């Protein structure tokens, strides 16, 4: 079970109910639960959308798209039913924040889904969890059942004539790519998780061909808090154009790894050294992957930057999913780059050639390089391959593979050259034992 952590610099909005037993509906109600959605019913869709816009909340799934604006794009009138889709596929390496939300405050996700539904005029929402999260699915399903039993879901919710809302929970079965919004819709329609060509965008043609709002689970769980505290009050917690707080998962070489809620714009240096307690054994920092595996790496002298979408973009990287992975001086970037690209090669859906072939060649080249069979041209080839994947794929997974690779090569080129010359770190992290290699080959 995840250990809950805490630090005085935290500003608790979304994590306010963590550790308080809020997965029980009575407790959730006691802690102001299901008030926001009732307020939303009273005040109407325009008020909800305006409040969300004023909050400056930007999507917590990775791209940081303004949530209020996304909700306002959905056409008011539609022949086909509209839907809300909650993305709980959480598979970006380094990211485990939604895990804690589902575990500690599942009703906030449910209430947020209802609020999004009210805002866009949908009567049905789906909460999709990755297949590995079965114990969390059980928790969410129990919470949904409780909400039905109270009359908060179903027909005439909260006793309001003509206000209906249903929620269906759904499990995935193992696939990173299904976290991409259109691939998620394909999966929910019982198909392979291959993305769709855009446009049309989901807000116009989404799930079952109906207008659909898709949001990350953390984005959605913020909605009830924002309605209760007011958009401006939430916005003020963060920085300009980056409203509020967000959950940061700090992992890797830190003394106190964990999921912390920090204001947007909080210093990355302080997140590592103050909040997460610094690096074990007094070792020096080598690098930080600041927002999940797909974000370009920052070097040790680049961490005086604020954790918001705009400042990270300015620093040449991304805030991404909020998963901060910390590497101490003992890590070999060659090893780290290899493990990163192995992931993307495994997860490429194979639809487009630059991604399918590009990730495969990057993996092959880096595997050989790592094994000691590299040559000078490899370093340029890796860069050339990655550069040619950028922007040439159907979905952003191709970029997600290329961007970190380019970061490693550009910022740590010297390390690749030293590796070529025979330099090795003292304790390599990747260990390969040949047990079962024949079985491996058969699969």
């Amino acid at each position, binding site marked *: *079970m*995840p250990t809950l952590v805490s630090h005085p610099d935290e500003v608790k909005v979304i994590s306010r109910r963590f550790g308080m037993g809020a997965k029980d509906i009575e407790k959730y109600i006691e802690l102001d639960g299901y008030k926001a959605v009732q307020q939303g019913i009273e005040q109407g869709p325009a008020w909800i959308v305006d409040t969300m816009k004023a909050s400056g909340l930007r999507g917590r799934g990775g791209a940081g798209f303004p949530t209020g604006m996304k909700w306002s794009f959905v056409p008011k009138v539609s022949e086909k039913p509209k839907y809300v889709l909650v993305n709980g596929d*959480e598979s*970006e*390496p*380094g*990211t*485990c924040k939604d*895990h804690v939300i589902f575990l500690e405050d599942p009703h906030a996700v449910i209430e947020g889904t209802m609020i999004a539904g009210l805002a866009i005029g949908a009567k*049905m929402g789906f909460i999709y969890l*990755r*297949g*590995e*999260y*079965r*114990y969390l699915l*059980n928790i969410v*399903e129990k919470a*949904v*059942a409780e909400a*039905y039993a109270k009359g908060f879901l*179903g027909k005439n919710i909260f006793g309001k004539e003509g206000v209906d809302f*249903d929620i*269906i*929970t759904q*499990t*995935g*079965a*193992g*696939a990173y790519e299904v976290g991409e919004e259109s691939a998620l819709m394909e*999966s929910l*329609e*019982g*198909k*392979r*998780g291959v993305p769709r060509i855009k446009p049309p965008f989901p807000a116009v043609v989404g799930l079952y061909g109906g207008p659909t709002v898709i949001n990350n689970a953390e984005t959605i769980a913020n909605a009830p808090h924002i309605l209760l505290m007011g958009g401006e009050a939430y916005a003020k917690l963060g920085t300009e154009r980056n409203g509020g707080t967000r959950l940061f*998962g*700090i*992992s*890797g*070489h830190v003394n106190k*790894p964990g*999921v912390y809620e920090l204001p947007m714009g909080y210093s990355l240096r302080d997140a590592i050294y103050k909040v997460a307690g610094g690096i074990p054994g007094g070792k020096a920092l080598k690098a930080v992957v600041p927002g999940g*595996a797909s974000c370009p790496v920052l070097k040790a002298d680049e961490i005086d930057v604020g954790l918001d979408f705009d400042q990270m973009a300015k620093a040449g990287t991304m805030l991404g999913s909020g998963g901060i*992975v910390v*590497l101490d001086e003992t890590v070999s970037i060659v*090893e*780290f780059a290899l*493990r990163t690209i192995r*992931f993307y090669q495994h*997860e490429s859906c194979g639809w487009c050639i630059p991604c399918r072939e590009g990730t495969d060649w990057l993996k092959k080249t880096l595997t050989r390089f790592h094994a000691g069979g590299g040559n000078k041209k490899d370093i340029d080839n890796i860069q050339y391959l990655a550069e040619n994947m950028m922007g040439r794929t159907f979905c952003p997974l191709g970029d997600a593979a290329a961007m970190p690779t380019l970061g490693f090569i550009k910022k740590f080129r010297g390390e690749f050259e030293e590796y070529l010359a025979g330099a090795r770190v003292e304790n390599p*992290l*990747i*260990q390969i*034992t040949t*047990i*079962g*290699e024949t*079985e*491996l080959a058969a699969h």
Partner: protein
Amino acid sequence: MAAVANSIFTPATAARFDKLATIYPLKRSALVPMLLYAQDEVGYVSDEVVAELAVRLDLLELDVRGVLSYYSMLRTVPAGKYNVQVCTNISCMLRGGFELLDHCKHKLGIGHKGVTADGLFSLEEVECIGACCWAPAVQVNYDFHENLTPAKMDAVLADYAAGKGKNEPPSPSIGSAAPEAK
């Protein structure tokens, strides 16, 4: 009336599947969950599972197989009773994920996707399982084990071998209390 005569599933699962096929705007939406829940019961997605799900959802077996081959958790051969899935992705790697995988290989005498001779354990190297802040992390079937070391891993394996593992039964209430049949 049951949707399928002579179902290969237990009556409880068959009844859940009957319902699952009715709750979505489109029946086919039940396919991915059904494949996983069927695997939970049968141990893998057998030819019989494919055939029955195709009938249940009015699909071709080919459609079912196409979807089946996409998702990494679904398998067409049995795994061990306890499927040990070791994450070696970045956060776990930094905190000993590979060491843990190697330890399991030696301990169990099997490699990636191998099954022990007694069928008790199987081993898999997996991608990030969403437990990065509690790394290194392992999933045994659906149970998470976190902040592991080789010694702690031995204790976890010993517990399962003695039938004392967590192994919470994966009992989805399927589609939750969701809308009644349309």
